[in-house]
C-alpha cells in the first residue's frame, strides 16, 4: 500500500467485492464448511488414497474372498477377494466422476435451455416449456432403467442418460430467472444498440443468474450421485471389474445373511456422506448468494 492510499482507507474503508462477500457468508455457515471439508476428504480419499493404499482392483483373488476386516485388509475383502478399502476408493471415483459430470452437464443444458426460453418468451417459451412439462411427467427412474437396460452402461453413457433426464429441473428454474431479467433496462438498451439474442442470453442473463445456477448445480450433483447409486443397486452399473458405491452396496446385500457387514456399511456411509456434503454446500452457497441474508 502506498502512502497516498492511506488517507482513503482511513476515511472510507474498502467495501469487499461480491466474491469475497459470498465467501465470507459461506464460511460463516458451519454446516456448509463441514460439507466442503467432507467433500474434500472424500475426493482426497478416492483420488489420492490409492497412492497410500495401492490394491489390485482389476483381478479377482478367490483365495482372499470374504475376509473380515483386519491385517492387510483394514475393511476386509469382497466375495471375489478385492480389498474393500481399495475398492471403496476405486468405486468412489466412478460415483464422483459420473455424479459430477452428469450434474454439471444437466445444469449446463438446463441453464441454456431455460435462459433461451425465458428470453424468447411468447410462443417459443410456451412450446419449450410444454416439452419440459411433458418430459417431467415421465418418472425419471423408469426412463433411466429403460435406457440403462438397452445400452451397456459405461461412464460416458451413464453421464449422458442421467443428464438427459436431469436437465429439466434447472431449465424451469433458470427460465423463471430469465423471464424476470429480460425486461430489465440494460437489456432494452443492449437491444436498442443492436445487440442480438445470443449476446443477451450469454452476456447478460446467464451472468446475472449465476448464483442460482451454482446453487442448483450442487443439488444436481448430489442427486446425480444418488441416481448412479440407484441404477447400480438395480444392477445397471458399469460392468465389472469397474465398481461404484451403488454396485458395491448391491453386491454386499447378498451377504448380509452371513454377517459380512463390511460389504455394505462402508459404501452406504460413503453415499450418505457425499450426498449430505453436496447438500450442505448447496445450502451454504444459496445463503451466500442471497443478498437479503447479507449483513449490511
Amino acid at each position: 500500500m502506498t502512502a497516498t492510499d492511506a488517507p482513503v482507507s482511513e476515511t472510507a474503508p474498502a467495501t469487499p467485492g461480491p466474491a469475497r462477500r459470498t465467501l465470507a457468508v459461506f464460511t460463516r455457515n458451519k454446516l456448509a464448511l463441514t460439507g466442503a471439508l467432507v467433500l474434500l476428504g472424500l475426493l482426497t480419499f478416492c483420488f489420492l488414497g490409492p497412492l497410500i493404499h495401492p490394491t489390485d482392483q482389476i483381478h479377482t483373488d478367490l483365495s482372499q474372498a470374504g475376509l473380515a476386516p483386519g491385517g492387510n485388509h483394514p475393511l476386509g475383502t469382497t466375495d471375489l477377494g478385492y480389498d474393500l478399502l481399495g475398492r471403496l476408493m476405486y468405486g468412489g471415483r466412478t460415483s464422483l466422476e459420473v455424479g459430477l459430470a452428469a450434474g454439471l452437464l444437466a445444469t449446463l443444458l438446463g441453464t441454456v435451455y431455460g435462459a433461451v426460453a425465458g428470453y424468447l418468451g411468447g410462443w417459443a417459451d410456451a412450446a419449450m416449456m410444454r416439452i419440459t412439462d411433458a418430459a417431467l411427467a415421465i418418472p425419471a427412474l423408469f426412463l433411466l432403467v429403460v435406457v440403462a437396460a438397452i445400452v451397456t452402461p459405461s461412464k460416458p453413457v451413464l453421464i449422458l442418460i442421467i443428464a438427459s433426464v436431469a436437465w429439466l429441473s434447472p431449465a424451469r428454474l433458470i427460465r423463471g430467472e430469465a423471464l424476470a431479467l429480460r425486461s430489465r433496462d440494460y437489456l432494452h438498451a443492449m437491444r436498442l444498440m443492436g445487440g442480438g439474442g445470443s449476446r443477451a442470453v450469454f452476456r447478460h442473463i446467464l451472468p446475472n443468474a449465476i448464483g442460482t445456477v451454482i446453487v442448483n448445480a450442487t443439488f444436481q450433483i448430489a442427486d446425480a450421485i444418488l441416481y448412479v447409486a440407484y441404477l447400480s443397486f438395480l444392477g445397471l452399473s458399469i460392468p465389472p471389474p469397474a465398481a461404484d458405491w451403488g454396485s458395491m452396496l448391491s453386491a454386499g446385500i447378498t451377504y448380509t445373511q452371513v454377517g459380512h457387514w463390511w460389504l455394505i456399511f462402508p459404501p452406504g456411509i460413503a453415499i450418505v456422506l457425499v450426498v449430505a456434503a453436496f447438500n450442505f454446500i448447496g445450502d451454504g452457497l444459496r445463503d451466500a448468494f442471497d443478498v437479503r441474508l447479507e449483513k449490511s
Partner: protein
Amino acid sequence: MGLRSTRIRGPVERILVAALLGIVVLAGCGPRGNVVTDVGPTGGTRIEGGTATMALPPASTPNWIFPIGAPGYLASHNSAIQNLLFLPLFQPVQKGAALTMDSPRGLAEQPHYSDGNDTVSITLKKGYEWSDGTPVTTRDVKFWFDLIKHNKKEWAGYSPKLMPDDVKAFEIVDDRTFRLRLDRPYNPTWFTANELQDFVALPAHAWNPDHQDPKHAFARLMRHAKKLSTFDSDPLWKTVNGPWRIEKWSTSGQVSLVPNKKYRGPDKPHLDRVILKPFTTADAEFNVLRAGGVDYGYIPPSVMAQSAKFKEMGYRIDPWEGWAITYIVLNFHHPTAGPLLHQAYLRQALQHLIDQPTISKVIWHGSAAPTLGPVPAGLLDGNPYPYDPKKAKALLAAHGWADHSGQLRCVRPGNSTRQCGAGIKNGQELRLSLLSQSGSTETSNTMQAIKSEFGKAGITLDIRQQPLNTVLGTTVPCKKSEPICSEWQLGFFGTQGSWYFPPDPSGEKIFATNAPSNMGNWSEPRTDRLIRKTEYSDAPTAMRDYGREVARQLPVLWTPNPAYQVSAIRNDLRGIDQNPTLSLAPQYWYFVKKTKNGARSGEGKGGAGK
C-alpha cells in the same frame, strides 16, 4: 433434478433418501423373516385344495406353450409346463441313481422292440381323453409325427438322420397301438430314452379340424405359439390331456395352473392352483421368500450356511441336483472369433485358465462341482485340462502370441504348428466377448473370475449380461452368412446348468454336426462317428469313448455345474419330487395341517412324487 414423480425436492429430503438407502440395506441384516408355518417337515394331516406358489429361476420367464419346441425357446421351465398340459408318451423317472423311462406319468406302455431292433411297437394307456371328452388316440400321435416330419427344420429337437429321419414308416395298428419301422437297428435303451421321449399326442381334432396338410397346419400353429399374450385365452391351448390346464399366463412370465377336471390319469391334482412366479434376480426372489411370498423357492448358495434360519421360518432346505453339465458355448461361425476358437491350443489354454474347483468352492459355496466332459464324470478319466495358468501361457507363447502391455497379440501368423493359426492376422489382439445370463450373483462372479484369469494371461474378455430368454434367443446355431452369427462369440446360460442329459447321455443333440442344441456350430467327424456308435450299440465303451473324445476336443469350455437350485420348501407343502431332469409334477403336491394330539397322521397317503 429429474422428474416429478421421483423428484427429490429439498436438502433434508435428499439426505433422508440417502439415509433410507442405508436403512434398506441394513434391514437385510435383520435376524429373520416371518414364520410361514408351524408344521414340521414331517407329520401332519393331508388336506385337499389350496394354492402353492413356486418361484421360477431368476431372469427367466416361460415363453413357449406349443409342445413342439422352437430354437431360442428351450428353457427347461417351458417343457416342464408343456408336459403338465400335453402328456409325453414316455417320461424319465429316477430309480435310485439311475433314470428309467417307465414313469407312471407317461401316456404309453413300455415300447416293444422286434425284428432285430428295427421295429418298435407302442401302445397308449387306456382311458385317456382330451379335456373336451374326445379320446386320445394314435391319430393324435401321428398328427405330432407328421408336423415334425414335414417341418423338421423348424423343430428345435431335430438332428439330421435322427427323428423323424430314422423312421421309415409310422403305421397305425388301431386307436391305441402304432408301430415304427426304423431305418436300421438301434440300441433300444438309447432309442427309448432319447428318441421316443420326444413323442407327444396333440389334439388333432381340435388343432386341425379341417385336415390341413402338415406344412400349413404347422405354420398356423406356430403363429398362435408366438402370441405370448394369448396363451391363456387362445382356445387352441385349452384342449389338453394332462393333469393341468392354463388359468393365466401373463406376458411378464407368471403362469397360473388349475386342475384339468377331465383328466383321466391316476395322478389327479390335490391342489386348487399352482402359481409359477418369475423374478428378475435371485436376490429379489430371496427377499420375497424371506417375507413368506413363495411356498417353494430357492436360496442363494451364499446363504446355505445360514439354512438354519430358514428352517426356523418353517422351510425345509433341499438342494435340487440336476443331471446336467455346464459350459460356455463357443461360436465357431463368428467372423472374427471363429478362427481363434478353431485353434485347439487356444481352447486348451482357455480351459487351463478356468479354476473350476476354486470357483465351485468359493463362489458357489460348494453347491457346484467341476464339469469335466459331456457325460457324467464317472465315465471320464479325469480333467485333461486342469487349472494351470503357466501351461496356458506357455501354450499361447508357443503358438506365436506375445504380450504387448498386458494384451496378447499374434506375432507369428500362419498355419504351421508354431504359428497362431489359420485366419488370424499379424498383430491381432486376443480379445473375446461373452454374452452371459443375468440375475445370479454367483454367475456374475464366476464370469468375473474367469475374465480376471484371462486378463492375467493377456486375454481380454468383454462380458455382457442379459436375461436368460435373450441369451437363449441369441446363442442359436447359425450359418456363417447369417447376421445373428455375428452377434455373439461366447455364450453362457448355465446358472441352473447348461444341458440336462436325456436318460441316455449321448451327444447327438449338442455336439453332433448340425445338432439342434449345438449352439456353437461344432463339427468334427470323429465326434460324429462316436456319437453314432452310442446310438447303435449298447456297449458301455461307446458312451465312454464319446465322452473322453469330446472332453479332449473341447467344443465348449467346461465350467462348474451348479445344483439346479437350493430349494426352500414350506414344511406344510409335501409330495414334491425334485427330479434331476427338471420335470415338474405338481399334481402330487398337497398341503398338510398340524395333526391334533391323538389324531392319525395322514401324510404319505395317496403316494406322491415318484
